[in-house]
């Protein structure tokens, strides 16, 4: 995903002179082509993320479209007040791209994990919070954010994630992408799987797991955690019996958390919500990303039975 980001921002910057790329001393050689193409619009701001975000806000106030790039936890946790005051309160369109988000850097330990940052950031007025599913969505999210008047946080993985979309999909901030079943395909789905970020392949595999057991599940790439795609939510909660969110993020505060808040205001919607994500804990175990996901039960084999149970319970209620 980070290579796609570097390629895409390099291509975009050549036609959009408002783009300035700021990096927090990360991405060794990743931006060599950008620097060649736009030598006066790349700045390594050093290992000083808070200053980088203030600087970006200043550039944006002067009409530029700055994009700040560094490792997700440092870009977000360390800088919440700069994001809040400099970007959101002043309402300037700075784009933050957090790399290695979620559990992508599982092996580096919890200092490098970001499983709470969407929950923190989505509370901030004006800020878009976006978790693209693959490198194609990274490109699409970047293009869309550069046309949006609001500040945006984009959380991406590192490299080698599965590419789900054959090409850059049609993409609107705050509008989920239907992947399978669901709206417009005439299928009556018992389950709606809403996946954000790199969980999309897991969500698709989970739908396969369910289908093999005769349970129909629609799948959406719910790339924008804020603003929520309320149309898709209304449809999912009106038609399915179980709606499940999947995210490489805590079940508190992220996609599942925000949909739980949304659903609490709509008791008339019948479906049951299940939130699949990381637990409210720091991961102390030495492990890679796959093992970390397994630790939190984020595999089709672990999630499938939970959906079956929820479906069975919903039948007992009705």
């Amino acid at each position, binding site marked *: 995903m980070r290579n796609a980001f570097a390629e895409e921002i390099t291509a975009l910057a050549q036609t959009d002179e408002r783009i*300035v790329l700021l990096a927090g001393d990360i991405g060794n050689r990743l931006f060599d082509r950008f620097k060649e193409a736009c030598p*006066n*619009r790349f*700045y390594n*701001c*050093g290992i*000083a993320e*808070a*200053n*980088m*975000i*203030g*600087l*970006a*806000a*200043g*550039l*944006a*106030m*002067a*009409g*530029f479209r*700055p994009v700040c790039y560094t490792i997700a936890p440092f870009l977000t946790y360390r800088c919440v*007040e*700069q994001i809040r*005051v*400099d970007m959101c*309160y*002043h*309402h300037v369109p700075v784009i933050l791209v957090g790399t290695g988000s979620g559990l992508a850097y599982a092996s580096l330990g919890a200092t490098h994990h970001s499983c709470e940052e969407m929950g923190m950031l989505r509370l901030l007025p004006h800020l878009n919070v976006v978790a693209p599913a693959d490198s194609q969505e990274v490109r699409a999210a970047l293009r869309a954010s550069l046309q949006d008047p609001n500040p945006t946080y984009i959380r991406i993985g590192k490299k080698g994630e599965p590419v789900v979309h054959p090409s850059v999909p049609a993409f609107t901030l705050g509008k989920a992408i239907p992947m399978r079943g669901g709206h417009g395909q005439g299928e009556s789905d018992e389950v709606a799987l809403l996946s954000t970020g790199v969980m999309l392949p897991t969500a698709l595999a989970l739908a396969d797991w369910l289908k093999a057991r005769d349970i129909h599940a629609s799948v959406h790439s719910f790339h924008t955690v804020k603003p929520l795609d309320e149309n898709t939510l209304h449809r999912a909660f009106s038609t399915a019996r179980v709606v499940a969110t999947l995210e490489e993020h805590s079940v508190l505060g992220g996609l599942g958390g925000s949909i739980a808040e949304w659903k609490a205001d709509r008791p008339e919607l019948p479906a049951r919500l299940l939130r699949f994500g990381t637990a409210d804990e720091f991961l102390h175990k030495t492990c890679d990303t796959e093992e970390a996901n397994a630790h939190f039960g984020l595999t089709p084999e672990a999630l499938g039975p939970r959906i079956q149970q929820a479906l069975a319970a919903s039948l007992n209620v009705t």
Partner: protein
Amino acid sequence: MECTETISELAAVSARMRGEVIMMSHRAGTPHLGSSLSVVDILVALYGAALRIDPKAPEDPLRDRAILSKGHAAMALYAVLAEHGFFGRELIDTFATHGAALAEQPSPHCAPGVELATGSLGHGLPISLGLALAAKIRGQSYRVFTVLSDGECNEGTVWEGALLAPALKLDNLVVIVDYNKWQATGRSEEVTSLSPLVEKWRAFGWHAQEVDGHDLAALTGALATVPHPSGKPLAIIAHTVKGKGVSFMEDDNNWHYRIPKASEVTAAFLELGLPAPVIPAGSGPKKAH
């Protein structure tokens, strides 16, 4: 803005600005009077003699930017902006009242000439770096002047910005530290080991110089050469006195929060050589801070 005012004219403006600030604090019951009085001469020199900005075109992309990063001294900024015609007197008269444009600390785009919502310390300098870098990228000649407090220099982001600005060769950036030797609850030198402040900025790669922050000739002189011929960003360490201009407020940190009573306003105006103030009935200290 043309540099036509003489030093004695600027001094007269400073005295009036101090009167305005004292009256605003009294009328609205708002704190930070000491901090506002210490920065008055800096702002009077800046707006009266240094900034290239047309108060009638406050959004001109080529204007110089002035950032009051120590947003708690907003009363002084508002008074000086009104003095220069950025907005009318009525905004001063309604300061900090319900629904007014001008709040105790500035909100974004609250009035012409107010560049930033400040008040949370340590934000002005990083943003100023961005404004200054934008000029460099586009080859524009505007300058950015940022006023910090000495207490604000506790903030890590001040030093992050101080480290980066020389690397970016931002000779169009000026920091002015209102070095009044106090912060909210103690001597700035005792809270952190701030001195030698001028040497700190110099060591970070700035052209740093000390001035008497109440000497308008020294201030205007220091602000006259931007970009500085050294090619470095400029740091002006302005030695000031908290509560400057009123004997019973000077260097007394109680005036960080205290609100002047009517009798104190009258006494202050007398000391400042200003005509006796008309004090609205029923105004004065009542809010708890």
